[in-house]
């Protein structure tokens, strides 16, 4: 149940993508998402689909985990898909009540769903192949210029690191507390909405108490390891270096952008390309 959430999870490995610099992975992901929204013909989407599939294969992480990552978003996808289908112009294919459905609508719905799917997949590629520490480290370094504007980038990054580290621990704890309260006859599954919300109190309070205790102990443990915030001479275990891999990645993304722009101009189906 709770364990099904995979977004933000990291799968250790040593694939091409695992070994890319996190900074370039973050930048290229943003670039990729932009490219994704530029595409608007079946051909350009075909290209995006194929390249995304190729990237996923390159990560050497089982496809199952990617599909599982999509599951929680199913509702949003279907919802936006239907909205897109119903509210687009074009020659009506059939009509009912106040809605009319056109080929144009169906295609734009499909494209919209595809966009979301590909976006989630590519974000999964980033988080699955990049350890949370590298990810936040990469972000911290990319956002470093903001420190001159007095934005506490390091503190935010440290908060992220710790949050990510404690997610599995707290999930496990939630499950334990739930079982312990069930053993005392608590009922989370039946009754009105208000009753169910009330039934959460015996879970939430112990969880908060425990989280605060953990935070306190962790703070002491960090002090014992000489942590003093963002000091000038703080060094990093992971040195970030751009390699040939990052160059290949950048060229790949650039080529993809050019490909999408070119394919957008090829109209294969009347009415589909705009």
């Amino acid at each position, binding site marked *: 149940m709770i364990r099904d959430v995979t977004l933000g999870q990291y799968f250790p490995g040593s694939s091409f993508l695992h070994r890319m610099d996190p900074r370039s992975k973050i930048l290229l992901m943003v670039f990729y998402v932009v490219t994704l929204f530029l595409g608007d013909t079946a051909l350009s989407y075909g290209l995006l689909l194929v390249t995304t599939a190729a990237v996923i294969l390159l990560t050497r992480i089982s496809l199952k985990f990617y599909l599982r990552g999509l599951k929680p978003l199913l509702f949003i996808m279907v919802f936006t898909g239907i909205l897109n289908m119903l509210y687009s112009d074009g020659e009506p294919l059939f009509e009912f009540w106040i809605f009319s459905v056109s080929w144009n609508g169906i295609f734009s719905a499909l494209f919209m769903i595809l966009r979301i799917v590909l976006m989630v997949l590519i974000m999964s590629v980033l988080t699955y192949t990049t350890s949370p520490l590298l990810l936040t480290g990469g972000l911290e370094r990319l956002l470093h210029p903001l420190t001159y504007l007095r934005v506490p980038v390091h503190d935010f990054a440290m908060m992220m690191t710790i949050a990510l580290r404690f997610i599995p621990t707290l999930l496990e704890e939630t499950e*334990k507390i739930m079982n*312990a309260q069930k*053993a005392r006859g608590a*009922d989370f599954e039946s009754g009105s909405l208000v009753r169910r919300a009330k039934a959460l109190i*015996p879970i939430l309070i*112990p969880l908060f*108490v425990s989280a605060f205790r953990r935070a306190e102990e962790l703070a002491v443990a960090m002090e014992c390891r000489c942590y003093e915030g963002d000091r000038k001479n703080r060094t990093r275990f992971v040195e970030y270096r751009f390699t040939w891999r990052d160059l290949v990645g950048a060229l790949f993304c650039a080529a993809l952008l050019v490909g999408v722009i070119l394919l957008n101009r090829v109209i294969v189906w009347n009415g589909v390309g705009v």
Partner: protein
Amino acid sequence: MSEVILKAEGLVEVYGAGTPFEKTAVNNVSFELYENEFVGVIGHTGSGKSTLIQMLNGLIKPTEGTIYFRGEDVWAKKYDRRMLRSNVGLVFQYPEYQLFEETVEKDIAFGPRNMGLNEEEVALRVEQAMHFTGLSDKLRESSPFELSGGQKRRVAIAGILAMRPRVLILDEPTAGLDPKGCSEILANVREYQREERATVVLVSHSMEDVAANASRVLVLEKGNLKMLASTQEVFARGEELMKMGLNIPQITRIFLQLRARGHENLPSVLSPEEAIRCLDAVTGGGRK
């Protein structure tokens, strides 16, 4: 012979069936628990102990096999499993992490209230549970979060005792407590067993605690039931246990080694007191 209260028949629990992470946590385990007995459960971390005890009170549904409470299949269609959980009380490891109410009294009352008892009965149960766990009446109105570690543990255990379970299962109830705290909690549990004529199942890594309290011991290894016999018999098979990487009480180990050194007339012992009696008998000493 007492009557059977809980019966497990061919219990199997498989996690993540059909995935590469498939793991059989409990494999074809069958046994019976009797009224008013004290059973110790020993085995490594990951031997299936915690899965097994959660099956016994209906928190985990076995993949295969049946559990009978007083002869009734607890996974039968109309069986009330919430009622089962009050009859088979389970004290989890570090139970103090489940405390949530403003006062000790309210927290202990959580279980009995969920059972739908009237306020009078709830108050009585709370009072009794506090008595069993040695909590002073003065603590009633205190916040459970302001108590010492040992007291929190007692409040949590009292929360289960207040449901007046016929079978009381405790998972490492003494973990993290100092020797005095350990022996007090175990004495509380024994008192509950005696006065309520309840069945107790103690899961513990401390072989000394198991030897000193249990009359029967159940040994689990990799999800399989390896032994279920009287405490004497199980610890007399010390070498087998040690091969499984389990320990035996130090005094039992010492006597086993003495036997290996040629003192074959020595029996297997479970406590220093018992050891003294045996030594006296063997040396023909007798008491002064």
